[in-house]
C-alpha cells in the first residue's frame, strides 16, 4: 500500500511538473532518483515486514524479545542512583532492606547482623548468616548444595561434546562453560576429532571413549579391571534469585587446583533471559574453579548477572572481576590461575565458604 501511495504521489508530481505541458507519455517517465528512492523504500518496507513476521514467530514459539540496550542503560543508571541515595540515608536502610526482603522473599531472621548495621544495600545483599543457619549434611556419600537457590537442571553427561540444555532449543557445551584448558575439554577435543574421522564407530564404542576421557582427566578413579570406569559425569544448574543468600560453599571436601576467570557480559539470568539469550551462561562473566574430590573431577562455575558487580573468591581475595578494561574484549581467553604448582592446591572442607556474588 505504501508503494501504491508513492506511485500515485509520483504520478501527481509528474503531472504538475511536466504532464500539463508535455506529451501524455512523458508523465509516466520517472527520474532515476525517484526510482531509486522507491526501490529503497520498498526494500525497507519488505525488511520491516520480514522482521515483524520473525518476531511474531518467535513470540509464538514462546521466546520473549530481548531488552533494548537503551532500556538496559537507563535501568542500570537508575539502579545505581538509587543505591547511592539509600546508602546515604541511614534511617532509610532498615525500611529499604525490609522492602527488598519482602520483594524477594528473603528471611531476615537468618541475617547475621541487625538491619541497620549494614552500611549499604551491597553489604546487605552479600550478608552472612547466623551460625548454624545452614547445617551441612554430614553423610560422606552425599554431595551438598553449594548455594541457596532453585534447581534449574541436572543430569548426567554421557557423550563426547556433551551439551547442557539451557532451555528447550538452547544448549551450550560443557567445554565452552569450563574453558578450553579444562581437564575434560583438552582430552575431549582430540576424541571428538577422532570420532569425526571414524563415522562407522558404534554408539557403544563412543560411550567407552567418553568414559576413558573422563578417567584420563582424573586418573585416580580409573579402574582398568572393570569394563567401565566407576564414575560418571554429572551436572547441576542452580539459579539464585536477588533475595537469596549470595555466598558459595564447597559441595564436598574438595582440592581446588585451577581458577579460570572469563570476563564477559552481564546479561540477566532470570527465566525470561534464559528463554531469550542463546549461550547465556557462556556469554556472561564467570569464574570457574576446577579440582578433584574423592570421586574424581569437580568444577564449579559461578556465573554473574546484571545485578552482580563482581565475583569475590574467599580462596583468592586478590582476584578482581567485572573490570571495565576487560569488558572491551569480553570474548578473549580466560585468565587462569594454577593453585597447584607443588601439587597441593587449595584444600576445602565440605561447607567451607568459597566465593560470594557482590551487588552493583
Amino acid at each position, binding site marked *: 500500500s505504501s508503494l501504491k501511495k508513492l506511485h500515485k504521489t509520483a504520478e501527481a508530481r509528474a503531472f504538475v511538473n511536466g504532464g500539463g505541458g508535455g506529451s501524455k507519455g512523458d508523465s509516466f517517465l520517472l527520474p532515476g532518483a525517484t526510482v531509486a528512492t522507491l526501490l529503497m523504500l520498498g526494500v525497507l518496507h519488505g525488511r520491516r515486514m520480514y522482521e515483524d513476521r520473525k518476531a511474531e514467530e518467535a513470540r509464538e514459539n514462546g521466546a520473549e524479545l530481548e531488552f533494548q540496550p537503551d532500556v538496559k542503560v537507563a535501568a542500570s543508571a537508575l539502579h545505581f542512583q538509587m543505591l547511592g541515595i539509600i546508602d546515604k540515608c541511614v534511617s532509610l536502610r532498615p525500611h529499604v532492606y525490609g522492602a527488598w526482603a519482602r520483594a524477594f522473599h528473603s528471611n531476615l531472621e537468618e541475617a547475621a547482623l541487625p538491619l541497620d548495621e549494614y552500611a549499604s544495600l551491597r553489604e546487605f545483599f552479600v550478608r552472612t548468616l547466623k551460625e548454624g543457619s545452614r547445617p551441612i549434611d554430614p553423610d560422606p556419600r552425599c554431595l551438598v548444595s553449594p548455594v541457596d537457590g532453585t534447581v534449574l537442571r541436572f543430569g548426567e553427561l554421557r557423550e563426547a561434546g556433551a551439551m547442557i540444555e539451557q532451555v528447550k532449543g538452547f544448549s551450550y557445551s560443557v567445554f565452552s562453560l569450563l574453558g578450553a584448558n579444562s581437564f575434560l575439554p583438552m582430552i575431549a577435543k582430540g576424541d571428538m576429532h577422532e570420532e569425526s574421522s571414524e563415522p562407522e564407530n558404534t554408539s557403544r564404542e563412543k560411550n567407552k571413549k567418553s568414559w576413558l576421557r573422563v578417567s584420563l582427566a582424573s586418573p585416580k578413579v580409573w579402574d582398568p579391571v572393570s569394563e567401565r570406569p566407576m564414575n560418571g559425569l554429572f551436572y547441576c544448574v542452580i539459579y539464585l534469585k536477588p533475595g537469596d543468600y549470595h555466598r558459595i560453599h564447597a*559441595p564436598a571436601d574438595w582440592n581446588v587446583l585451577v581458577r579460570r576467570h572469563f570476563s564477559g557480559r552481564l546479561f540477566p539470568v532470570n527465566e525470561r533471559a534464559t528463554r531469550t539469550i542463546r549461550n547465556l551462561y557462556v556469554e556472561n562473566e564467570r569464574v570457574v574453579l576446577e579440582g578433584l574430590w574423592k570421586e574424581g573431577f569437580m568444577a564449579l562455575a559461578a556465573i554473574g548477572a546484571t545485578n552482580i558487580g563482581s565475583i569475590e573468591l574467599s580462596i583468592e581475595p586478590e582476584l578482581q572481576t567485572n573490570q571495565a578494561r576487560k569488558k572491551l574484549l569480553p570474548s578473549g581467553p580466560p585468565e587462569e590461575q594454577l593453585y597447584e604448582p607443588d601439587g597441593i592446591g587449595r584444600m576445602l572442607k565440605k561447607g567451607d565458604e568459597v566465593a560470594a556474588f557482590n551487588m552493583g
Partner: protein
Amino acid sequence: STVVLVFQAPISLSQEKRDSSSEFKFLVQRGDRVRVGEALGRWYDQ
C-alpha cells in the same frame, strides 16, 4: 546469578545394573528450592 556444578560421581558398573544401589542419584527435582548444605545427591556402597 547462577552456579553450575560439574562433577564425577559413582555409577553402576554395567548398563544392566543402572538401578543398582551404587549409583549416584539426585535427591532434588527441577524447580526445587535448595539451601547450602542440603544434599543434592547421594550414593551407597554395594
